[in-house]
């Protein structure tokens, strides 16, 4: 999975170069901080109006935030535990299963971005 030796970002599509910002050193921290700020705003804005809903829990300010964070974390942890039980090697179903065979190349158009 090493980088290709003659990989020149200057030749990427313009849009690709723009998106390349996400991999610049320090960008990841900026993204995380932007997310934290967005979360804080989404939480803070709830105090500017009176929440309403059908269920009692909807009246608790920050309920959705807490529920989203906790349940998401729980989901990942449970899924991780589940993997322990259901994970099998890729060739578990033998060599006549789609998991092990290559996709037929004649039906694809595999190209490098430098290819014409």
């Amino acid at each position, binding site marked *: 999975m090493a980088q290709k030796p003659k990989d020149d970002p200057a030749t990427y599509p313009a849009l690709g170069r723009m998106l390349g910002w996400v991999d610049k050193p320090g960008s990841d921290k900026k993204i995380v901080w932007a997310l934290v700020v967005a979360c804080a705003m989404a939480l803070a804005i709830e105090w500017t109006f009176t929440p309403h809903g059908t269920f009692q829990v909807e009246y608790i300010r920050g309920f959705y935030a807490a*529920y989203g964070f906790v349940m998401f974390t729980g989901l990942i942890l449970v899924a991780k535990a589940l993997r322990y039980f259901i*994970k099998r090697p890729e060739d578990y179903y033998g060599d006549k299963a789609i998991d092990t065979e290559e996709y037929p190349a004649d039906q694809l158009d595999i190209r490098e971005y430098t290819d014409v």
Partner: protein
Amino acid sequence: MFDVIPTAFIFFAAAAILLALPKGPARGLLLLITPIIAGVQVWNAGFGNFVQVGFFGFELELMRIDGLSRIFTMVFCLAAFLGNLYAWHVRDTVQQVAALLYAGSAIGAVLAGDMITLFFYWEGTAIASVFLIWARRTEGAYNTGMRYLIIQVASGVVLIAGVALFYRETGSIAFERMTLGSPGTWLIFMSFGVKCAFPLLHNWLQDSYPAATVTGTVILSAFTTKLAVYALARGFAGTEILIYIGTVMTLFPIFFAEIENDLRRVLAYSLNNQLGFMVVGIGIGTEMALNGTASHAFAHILYKSLLFMSVGAVLFRTGTSKASELGGLYRTMPKTAIFCLVGAASISAFPLFSGFVTKSLTLSAVAEEHRLIIWLCLVFASAGVLSHSGIKIPFFAFFAHDSGKRPKEAPTHMLWAMGITAFLCIAIGIYPAPLYAILPFEVQDAHPYTTGHVTSQLQLLLFALLAFTFLYRKGIHPPEIRAVNVDTDWTYRKAGPAVIYWLAWVVGSIYNGIIGLLAKTTTRTIRRLHNSHGPEGRMARNWPTGAMVLAIAVLLGATLLVNFLI
């Protein structure tokens, strides 16, 4: 013969015409025009029952257009158009014909006013669609297709058995709302359940969709399961058990999707989860809930197609759709990456995207019924959707670690197909009124963009994203690894064959034992006789040569006597 041509027949006629056309753009155009003609026909026809034909004493209704069937027909036509545009490059006649017959059958089933017509089209979708899997032309795809076909055809067989019992019971074959109770209705219900991928009946979906061709999966994802959703909405709206089935459906796939490596299989799990929301809506059965189901199906077909298209484009350019082999593709496939992000935002129900305005109808309907537990489960499932479809698909394919792959951007026609679909996802999200206008029932005071609703949804999603960021950066998030996960298909791919091998061994052993015993006994008997009566046997030794001479003499004497007397 008919005043109105049944819409399905337009597709079947197109399939026949297609064979006469040369391979290339002419066929591509036919594949694009057909769904447009069909869509225009249904849109202009208005509501009513248009085609009746006699069939062995039954009156079959081939064209029932009402609010419910119209929205499903329209979105099926749209999906067929977009799928065929995405498949513009395909020169494989099998796939092109299969795509037309499949879409035609699905639309025919939706417009069926009776259950015999429904059955024919139901099986039609099964048979036509399997060719989209077999068209991959590998042994693995062949085997998967066989499993798929057996399950799909079995669903049809169960359906017709149910219809027969239902007819004996009620004397009617009309496809209307039923009450679950008699064996007939249960069979019909289970038949719909198989196609709708109910829990434990679901695994054909995750087994087969990743096995289809690049374009085949996009087409498959639109029809079969949503046909089942339509059938349930038509036949079993307000059936309480569906609320619980649907809730389980929203929950269990999100765990499997989280740890699945093949991104097309992740999307199949995600599809299963989305069906759960629709099934809950059907179970609630109020007008608002059914509107929620119909609008969710509409939006879902679009964003799910979009996600399958973007992952398909990656597969088309790199040869793999496994997350462990991908990453960092945004550099050279930026447009596909952005379209994928639009699909991800739509399915995650971010405000301004289609999922937000459609899912809210279902959730409101659940809230109106004061079902707190169900509601909490669905909100949790919404966060789960974000985890696998909203984050995992775009992040691990296009961002995350750099796989070193630098594929070329997707072909132009694929970009157009994705672009139009992405546009529709955003358009519905920003301006849902046209979609609300074609829902089966009048939409009453649906205001998805209230401050409270937007805030709560943003809180849920942003804090879930925050949790992801935290877990990913801490290395707790499960890594993408080359592996498969067993699901219920284990029962018929591993356990079933193992039991059969074991039984074969037992029966074989008993058979061999009996045959061996018989052979041994016979050999022993022959040997014993040989010992006693054989040339070296004791009996043989007791017959001296003189005895033989005496016997011949007696024989000759007797002959002489007989001659003499005669």
